[in-house]
């Protein structure tokens, strides 16, 4: 029997974490995502699946607790919103450098600074380009529904362990706070320590009978060895780029104009496609589901078909840079988006499209 529930995006993250067999959650309260930890605390998974849930003293502590747990081969996650995720950047680059799998959720709110608690998409650069130091990449998933909030927790863990890399769920206050129907996945048992030892032989669980000790580290002072390590990371990122691109295309076959949008903006753009088509403008929508790896090839292909591309984000224009790189000058690429916590309407999107591309 299917289990269907009406829930908030943030609650779906919590529910999905327990169901996919997560071992631990470490977090610090911040609006608009506090429901993730609140839901976990209310569900008391330590009494059922044995999952650990702990409120840390800061996001710096949470991400480092995640580092500790991830180093033991455990499925651990944290969630926060923009200011908190800024504090996690140090931890994220260490996790990437030490090649540790984990899941980090950012329910983005408007910045810069303390900004606003209203939704925004202004942390794309930080998530996709690496907000911490060094040449590293996070695998970045962008859910556009409460269902995807639930589904992507499990997917993020799968990708994180497949590539030994932190996976990031970049969402926003709209998706985090809105309520939708969710079909919940069945419970998966947590991995036993024996399973972890077998499947993740790098994990530090105590040396046991291993000949060699395991060391989780990101430091290498020999520059030649360090260059090799960096090359290995880059090869991994290339493999991820080649293998893991996920996207959704809506009404793109006959499109004259293309909208590119993710998350809440993609939901708005779905409606904008309808509005535009009712006016006789053939508009399609490409929704990147993975922001890294970015659907560069698909955008490149559509760039040759359409007369204009509009990147729609609740930001001053961040993803638009990647869209432009993909289009590579073949077609004009513009950006539209409201800022500071304001959500654009479908008609505003269509109006922007008309202003950019259809007015002489």
């Amino acid at each position: 029997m299917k289990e269907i529930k009406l829930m908030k995006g943030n609650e779906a993250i919590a529910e999905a974490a327990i169901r996919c067999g997560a071992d631990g959650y470490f977090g610090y309260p911040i609006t608009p995502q506090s429901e993730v930890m609140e839901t976990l605390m209310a569900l008391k998974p330590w009494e059922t699946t044995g999952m650990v849930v702990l409120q840390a003293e800061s996001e710096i502590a949470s991400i480092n607790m995640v580092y500790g747990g991830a180093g033991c081969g455990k499925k651990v996650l944290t969630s926060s919103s923009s200011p908190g995720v800024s504090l996690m950047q140090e931890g994220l680059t260490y996790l990437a450098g030490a090649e540790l799998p984990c899941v980090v959720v950012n329910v983005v709110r408007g910045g810069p600074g303390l900004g606003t608690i209203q939704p925004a998409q202004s942390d794309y650069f930080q998530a996709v380009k690496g907000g911490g130091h060094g040449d590293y990449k996070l695998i970045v998933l962008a859910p556009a529904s409460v269902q995807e909030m639930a589904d992507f927790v499990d997917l993020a863990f799968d990708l994180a362990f497949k590539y030994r890399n932190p996976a990031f769920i970049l969402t926003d206050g709209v998706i985090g706070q809105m309520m939708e129907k969710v079909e919940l996945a069945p419970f998966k048992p947590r991995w036993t320590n024996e399973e972890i030892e077998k499947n993740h032989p790098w994990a530090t669980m105590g040396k046991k009978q291993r000949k060699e000790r395991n060391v989780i580290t990101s430091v290498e002072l020999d520059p030649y060895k360090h260059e090799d390590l960096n090359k290995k990371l880059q090869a991994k990122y290339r493999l991820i780029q080649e293998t893991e691109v996920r996207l959704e295309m809506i009404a793109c076959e006959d499109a004259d104009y293309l909208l590119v949008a993710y998350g809440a903006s993609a939901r708005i753009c779905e409606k904008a496609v309808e509005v535009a088509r009712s006016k006789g403008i053939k508009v399609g929508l490409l929704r990147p589901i993975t922001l890294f790896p970015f659907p560069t090839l698909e955008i490149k292909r559509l760039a040759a078909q359409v007369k204009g591309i509009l990147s729609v984000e609740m930001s001053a224009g961040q993803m638009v840079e990647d869209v432009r790189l993909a289009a590579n000058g073949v077609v004009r690429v513009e950006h539209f988006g409201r800022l500071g916590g304001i959500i654009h309407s479908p008609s505003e999107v269509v109006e922007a499209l008309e202003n950019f591309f259809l007015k002489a």
Partner: protein
Amino acid sequence: MIDTVNPIIAPENLIYAKSEVLLDNIMHYCPGCSHGVVNKLIAEVIEDMGIQQTTIGIAPVGCAVFAYNYLDIDWQEASHGRAPAVATGVKRLLPDTFVFSYQGDGDLAAIGTAETIHACNRGENIVMVFVNNGIYGMTGGQMAPTTLPGMQSSTCPFGREASRDGHPLKITELLAQLPGTSYVTRQAVHTAASVRKTKKALRLAFENQKLNKGTSVIEVVATCSSGWKMTPVQANKWMEENMFAYYPLGDMKNE
């Protein structure tokens, strides 16, 4: 020389042997540095307790960053100051293992103060080894939170002045106030007797962990002859005369 020594090396004559937990890698610590002794003592305690297979060490950023090259156990290398949070993550998810953090004064008492206090306040069931040499060794001798008044460093070349630089932080006294800590002590490793005492303290701390007694904090007042710009012998003397006056040795809490 060899001819006279070799016949003496016989099992019945051995009173001391290198711990099996200690690897053969050459330590990068400067001559006379306390870190090497503390590393060795932890190795001995792990061996004595038979917990090599179940111990996970958390190395800091500081001169002990490569401690994982010396002890044959599983290790995680944390970012600067975050070892107590990393240790928390490990211990919460693997409660049956022995977990210790190994940190310098900059790591534990400056950049990582919040992580230190909150791990102790939660009573994380871990051992914190705190090597207090009153200076930043690894980065070349800058002022630490524990640098003594008047003591010179590369960032207080005319001596630490409390009115400008603040006071040396007695963080261990502070940690002893927290209900989450069960054993808090300050030791040293500059004499044979003090080495034995520190080893006993470390043993007790790991035994406490077995009994789920909360956080044990072992501070070791240490020398950094390179950072202090002294010979190892001078450094020991200076430590006895100056550091011990401000950081008196002994147990602060043993519950």
